[in-house]
C-alpha cells in the first residue's frame, strides 16, 4: 500500500513526480491512497518509493487532463489520473475512447474543474484597498478579493489574474490559500482564511448597472441560477439586488403595458442635409479615386440605376455595380456581371478577374484613364453554399433586362470600339454569344453598328487548371487587348 501525501501548494508538480515513481515501481492503482499533507497523518503502510527508472509515454492530451484532475477536492481526480497513466502504457489511444468508463469519469471531473476555474475567473470581485500612509504618488493601486472555489484551483487560476491585472497589486484569499501579486511577483501561501467584511464604493455603481441592464419583460430566473448558482451569490455584491429585481419584474411589465402609447412628439425633425450639388468636374472616376474628366449624365445614370428592379437579381445583391471610366473614353470594355468582391465594393473589375484584366491591359499598353469598364449585367448573381457565394451565369432574361442600362452607357460614352469579354458580353452587344472561342479575335458589330472586338472573359483564364495552358491563353488574351490600340490607330488614320 502507498499513501503519498502531497503539499497544498505545488500539488501538481508533486503529483507528477510521485506518479512517475509509483508507475516505475508498477504500483497497482488500487493500492495507492492519494491525499494531501493537510489531510492529516500519512497512512500506516507507506513504503519508500523507487527513483523513476521506467520511461513513461503519455499523449499530450494527458498532460492537459492531469492539470484539471489533480485539483479535484476529494482526491478521486488524482487517483483517476494515476489509473489512466498506468493504463496508457498499454493502450496509448485510450483517451480518445469516451465510451470507456474511466475516461468518461475523468472527463466529467475535468469538465467540473474547468467550470470551477471559469467561475473563479468570472466571479472574483476585487475591492480597492487604501494606499498605506506615506505611499509614493503614482504607486501601484492595491486590491483584495475573497473567493470560495469548490476545488483546489488557486494555483491553476493565479496566472490568469497575473496576466490580466498586471499594473496593480492584488491578493485573492480563499479559505485555504492566499495568492499574492506584488510588484509583478506572484506567490501563493497556504493559510486559513475567513470571509472579510469589506466594501468598495464602486459596488453601488456596479449594482446600478446590473439592475439597469436587466430586462424585466424577459424574466428567467432559472436560466440565471443555472449559470450563477446561489452558492456564489454571497460574494457577489450585485447579487443583493436579485430578489427585488425578480419581485418587481411583473409589475414593471404590467405598467409598461398599461401605459398609453406615446404619439409622435410634435418636435420638428432636424432637416436632413441637402445632398451636395455635383461638381461639374466630378465624375464617376473622380469619385472612385480615379482620373478626373467626364460627364454628369453618367453619374446621373449610375444614381438612377441604384433603384433598378428590372430583374429579380436586385433582391439578393448588395448593390448595383455600374460601369466606370471617363465619359469621353474611346474604348468600352464589357464583362459579364459583378462578382462577390464587386458586389461589396460597388465597383466593377476589382475582384480577382478584374485585377487580372487590369494587369493584362496595362501590359498591353492600355492606359486605365482611356477606357470605360462595365458589365452586361449590373447585379451579382449567386447561389449560397454554406458561407460562400458561388457565382452564377446570368439568364438571357436578366441580360436583356439589363441591356437598357448598357445601351444608355453606350449612348453616353459613344466609344469608337467595344470589347466583348466572354459570351455574356458578346450576347449583350451583338445578340448572340454562341461559339465564343471560334469568334474570338474577330471584329464584329453591335446592333447599332459599333465595332466589337471579341475576346474571352479574364475569369476563364483563372479557371484553367493547367498552368501551361493558362499561360498560353493569358498571352492570347493580352494579344487581343494589344489589338485594341492597333484598331484605334487604324480608325484614326
Amino acid at each position, binding site marked *: 500500500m502507498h499513501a503519498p501525501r502531497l503539499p497544498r501548494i505545488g500539488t501538481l508538480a508533486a503529483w507528477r513526480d510521485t506518479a512517475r515513481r509509483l508507475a516505475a515501481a508498477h504500483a497497482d492503482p488500487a493500492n495507492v491512497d492519494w491525499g494531501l499533507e493537510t489531510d492529516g497523518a500519512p497512512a500506516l503502510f507507506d513504503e519508500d518509493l523507487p527513483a523513476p527508472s521506467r520511461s513513461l509515454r503519455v499523449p499530450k492530451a494527458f498532460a492537459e487532463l492531469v492539470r484539471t484532475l489533480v485539483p479535484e477536492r476529494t482526491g478521486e481526480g488524482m487517483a483517476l489520473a494515476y489509473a489512466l497513466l498506468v493504463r496508457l502504457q498499454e493502450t496509448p*489511444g485510450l483517451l*480518445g*475512447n*469516451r*465510451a470507456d468508463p474511466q475516461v468518461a469519469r475523468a472527463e466529467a471531473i475535468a469538465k467540473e474543474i474547468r467550470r470551477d476555474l*471559469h467561475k473563479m475567473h*468570472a*466571479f472574483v*470581485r*476585487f*475591492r*480597492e484597498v487604501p494606499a498605506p500612509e506615506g505611499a509614493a504618488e503614482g504607486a501601484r*493601486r492595491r*486590491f483584495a478579493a475573497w473567493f470560495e472555489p469548490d476545488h483546489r484551483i488557486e494555483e491553476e487560476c493565479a496566472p490568469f489574474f497575473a*496576466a*490580466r*491585472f*498586471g*499594473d*496593480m497589486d492584488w491578493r485573492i484569499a480563499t479559505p485555504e490559500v492566499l495568492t499574492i501579486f506584488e510588484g509583478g511577483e506572484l506567490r501563493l501561501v497556504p493559510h486559513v482564511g475567513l470571509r472579510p467584511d469589506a466594501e*468598495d464604493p*464602486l459596488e*453601488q*455603481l*456596479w449594482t*446600478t*448597472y*446590473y*439592475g*439597469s*441592464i*436587466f*430586462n424585466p*419583460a*424577459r424574466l428567467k*430566473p*432559472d*436560466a*440565471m441560477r443555472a*449559470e*450563477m448558482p446561489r452558492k456564489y451569490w454571497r460574494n457577489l455584491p450585485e447579487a443583493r439586488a436579485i430578489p427585488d*429585481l*425578480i419581485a418587481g419584474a411583473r409589475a414593471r411589465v404590467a405598467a*409598461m*403595458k398599461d*401605459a398609453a*402609447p406615446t404619439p*409622435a*412628439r410634435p*418636435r420638428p*425633425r432636424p432637416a436632413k*442635409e441637402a445632398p451636395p450639388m455635383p461638381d461639374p468636374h466630378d465624375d464617376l472616376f473622380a469619385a472612385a479615386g480615379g482620373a478626373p474628366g467626364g460627364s454628369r449624365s453618367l453619374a446621373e445614370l449610375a444614381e438612377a440605376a441604384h433603384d433598378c428592379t428590372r430583374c429579380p437579381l436586385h433582391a*439578393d445583391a*448588395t448593390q448595383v455595380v455600374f460601369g466606370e471610366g471617363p465619359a469621353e473614353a474611346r474604348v468600352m470594355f464589357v464583362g459579364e456581371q459583378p462578382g462577390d468582391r464587386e*458586389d*461589396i*465594393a460597388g465597383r466593377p473589375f476589382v475582384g480577382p478577374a478584374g485585377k487580372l484584366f487590369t494587369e493584362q491591359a496595362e501590359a498591353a499598353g492600355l492606359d486605365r484613364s482611356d477606357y470605360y469598364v462595365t458589365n452586361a449585367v449590373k447585379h451579382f448573381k449567386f447561389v*449560397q453554399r454554406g*458561407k460562400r*457565394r458561388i457565382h452564377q451565369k446570368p439568364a438571357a432574361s436578366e441580360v436583356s433586362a439589363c441591356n437598357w442600362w448598357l445601351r444608355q452607357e453606350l449612348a453616353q460614352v459613344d466609344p469608337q470600339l467595344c470589347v466583348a469579354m466572354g459570351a455574356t458580353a458578346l450576347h449583350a452587344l451583338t445578340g448572340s454569344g454562341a461559339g465564343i472561342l471560334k469568334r474570338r479575335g474577330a471584329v464584329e458589330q453591335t446592333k447599332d453598328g459599333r465595332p466589337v472586338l471579341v475576346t474571352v472573359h479574364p475569369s476563364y483564364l483563372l479557371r484553367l487548371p493547367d498552368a501551361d495552358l493558362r499561360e498560353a491563353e493569358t498571352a492570347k488574351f493580352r494579344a487581343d487587348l494589344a489589338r485594341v490600340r492597333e484598331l484605334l490607330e487604324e480608325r484614326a488614320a
Partner: protein
Amino acid sequence: MAKMTIQEKLAILSDAAKYDASCASSGGSKRDSRKGDGLGSTTGSGICHAYAPDGRCISLLKILMTNFCEFDCAYCINRRSSNVRRARFTVDEVIWLTEEFYRRNYIEGLFLSSGIIRSPDYTMEEMVRIVEGLRARGFRGYVHLKTIPDASPDLIERAGLCADRLSINIELPRDASIKALAPEKDAGEIRKAMGRVRLQKEDFDEPSHTGRRRGKFAPAGQSTQMIVGADDATDADVLGSANRMYGAYGLKRVYYSAFSPIPDASEVLPLKDPPLLREHRLYQADWLLRYYDFGLDEIVNRDGKGMLDLDIDPKLSWALQNRGTFPVDVNRAPRETLLRVPGFGTKIVDRILKARRAGALGLEDIRRMGGRVKAARPFVTTKDHHPAGLLDEAALRARFVKPEQMELF
C-alpha cells in the same frame, strides 16, 4: 436642471442598451498585461462575469454614449419621439467607468453603442475617441463598437483598429419593414456598410508587400442583430436574411432579439410578451445552418408558412419529416449523417467517431459520452438497440412535445 450624477447617467444609458442582445467577448486577439505596462487581457474565449435575472449573461459594460437620437425608429426606446429621460456620457466618464469596473473584475470590457446626434460622423468620432482613449491608456480588455452605418470609412477604420468587434444592426429582416418602422434608415446603406467592413478587414488581414501587418482590424469580426416579432416577417425571412449576410459580409454572428415591451411604446407597435421561444428556435436553426450543413429550405419549409415549429427543436422537426433517412447506424454512419441525428451535437459526433474505433458502441456508451439518448433513440441503431416500429409510430412527435407551453414567467 441639476447636473446628473454618473450613477444617474449609468442607470439611463445602460437601461437604454439592454435591448441589444450581444454581450459576447470571444474571438478577440490574445493579449495581456503581465509585464505591468497596462491593464487587462483577452484570452480568445469570453467570460460571463454575471447573469441577470433575465437569464442573460453580463460580460461587457454595455452602454450607450448617449440616448439622444435624431432617428425615429418605432421599435426603439431612444427614438426621437420617445419621452424617455435623456443623458450623455463624456468621453472621460466612459473611460473611467470601463477601467474601474474592469479593475474590480466586473467586466471583460466595453460594448459601446450610441444614439445618433448631430451627424453620423460626429457621433462616430466621439465613440472612436473613447476607444482610442482607452487604448492609449494601455487598456487591453475587449471592446465591441456599434458603428454608425453612414459614418465615413476612415472613422470606421480607426474604430476597427481599436475594437475587437464591430457591429451594425440591421434590426429588421425585410427592407420594407425597415422603410416602414425606421424611416431614417436605409437597408441598402446598412448592407453596404457591412460590406465595407468586410473589405477593410480583408485588406488589413493581407500582409503588405513588405510582409508586415498594418495592424489588426476587428479581430473578432463583425456581427449584427435582428429584432424578431416587431413586424410580420416569417422565420424564413429572418433566417434568409441572416444567411445572406453570413455569406456576403462574413458575419461572425447574427443575434436574434425578441421584440420586448419598452416603457414608452410607439403607437405603431403592439405591446406583447416577447416571443422568447421563437427567438430560441431561431438560434437553434441558425446553428444548424452554420455548423450542421443544413440548407435553409430543409429547416423552414415545414408547412409552407415559413415558420419554425415552436413545440420541438428544428433538427427534431426535420428528422420527423424525413423518417426515411433513419435509422442511422451509429457504428457505421459517416460524420455528416450522424450530425443529422437529434440529440447529437458536433462534439458528441466527434467522440462517437473516435470511440467506435475501439469497439462497437451501445446506447449506454453514447449516454456516457454525453449524447442525448432520449432524443436519439428512435433514430439510431447501435449494437444493442434497434428502433423497429418506433420510427413509424404516428404519435412519435407527441413523445417529444411537452404537454404545456413552456413557462416563460
